[in-house]
């Protein structure tokens, strides 16, 4: 097979060296900065305190009382005359629903597009993977 000399040659050794650099002394100081961050995170984390039995009962009683108060207020509020105007506009709610649906549709389309691309690639990959497992030379596969 004739070799194509116009083809960019990824075999050039110079290309195999990555072209990135770091600020001077970065690796020398990394460990110290990391330790500092770990110390800061550990000192700022609040220790979890166990709740005592008596405190637990008081908390439960408070929660029940709060729930009862809220329920009573809602019932009174909704049954009082002239409260209709305080409800949100149905048209506005519908509009919000449409916006939500649009966002969902957008997400769905985005995902579908991704899946479609993946499927195409997956099919090619599966075929190539099969040939690769059976030790067929990659260059022959791509011929």
């Amino acid at each position, binding site marked *: 097979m004739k070799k194509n000399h*116009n*083809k*960019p040659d*990824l075999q050039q050794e*110079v*290309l*195999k*060296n*990555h*072209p*990135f*650099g*770091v*600020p001077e002394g*970065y*690796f020398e100081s*990394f*460990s110290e*900065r*990391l330790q500092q*961050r*770990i110390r800061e*995170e550990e000192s700022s984390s609040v220790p979890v305190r166990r709740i005592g039995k008596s405190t637990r009962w008081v908390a439960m009683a408070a929660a029940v009382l709060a729930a009862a108060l809220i329920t009573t207020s809602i019932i009174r509020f909704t049954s009082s005359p002239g409260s209709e105007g305080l409800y949100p506009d149905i048209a506005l709610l519908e509009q919000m629903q449409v916006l939500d649906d649009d966002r969902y549709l957008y*997400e769905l389309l*985005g995902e579908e597009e991704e899946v479609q691309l993946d499927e195409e*690639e997956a099919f*090619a*990959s599966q075929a*190539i*993977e*099969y040939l*690769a*497992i059976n030790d067929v030379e*990659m260059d022959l*596969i*791509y011929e």
Partner: protein
Amino acid sequence: MQEWDDREIIEGSKIQGKEEIAFNQLVFKYQERLYWHVRKIVIDHDDADDVLQNSMIKIWRSLSSFRSESGLYTWLYRIATNEALSFLKQKKKKAFAPWIDLEGQMSESLEADPWFNGDEIQLKLQQAILKLPEKQRIVFNMKYFDQVKYEEMSEILGTSVGALKASYHHAVKKIESILRKD
């Protein structure tokens, strides 16, 4: 400082009073390799620094419970890779625009990056790599720049050797075609 081998690091991390020394040994031994691996994924130096620190903190928190079923090196690479990929995902989310072409932005920022030391052809190569799908990009970087064996890569990325070979060859073909067009 005498360098510990992986076994000493793992054993040291389980002994009370020695955990910190073991972790420092791990950082000293692997920081550069992990940094370069992450840098090639996230491109920007500051981002790579963030990801490396986050990875190291995760490693610090779970090192004592690490079971040496897989090699330490494989485990570290896996954590760093996942951390880098989640970082990119978060970056896209933070932009409040999932359609944003993050790789395109990364590609453009390379030209102005003060920590990019490459010449024109190296810049073109990096920009071509950034056009690959995320996973293909990682496979290409690991094979092409780091010469990681497919078997090791398979453990790190949890993908079969055959799929990795195929992925690498797809990547090479795409990069060659992109470079040819430029």
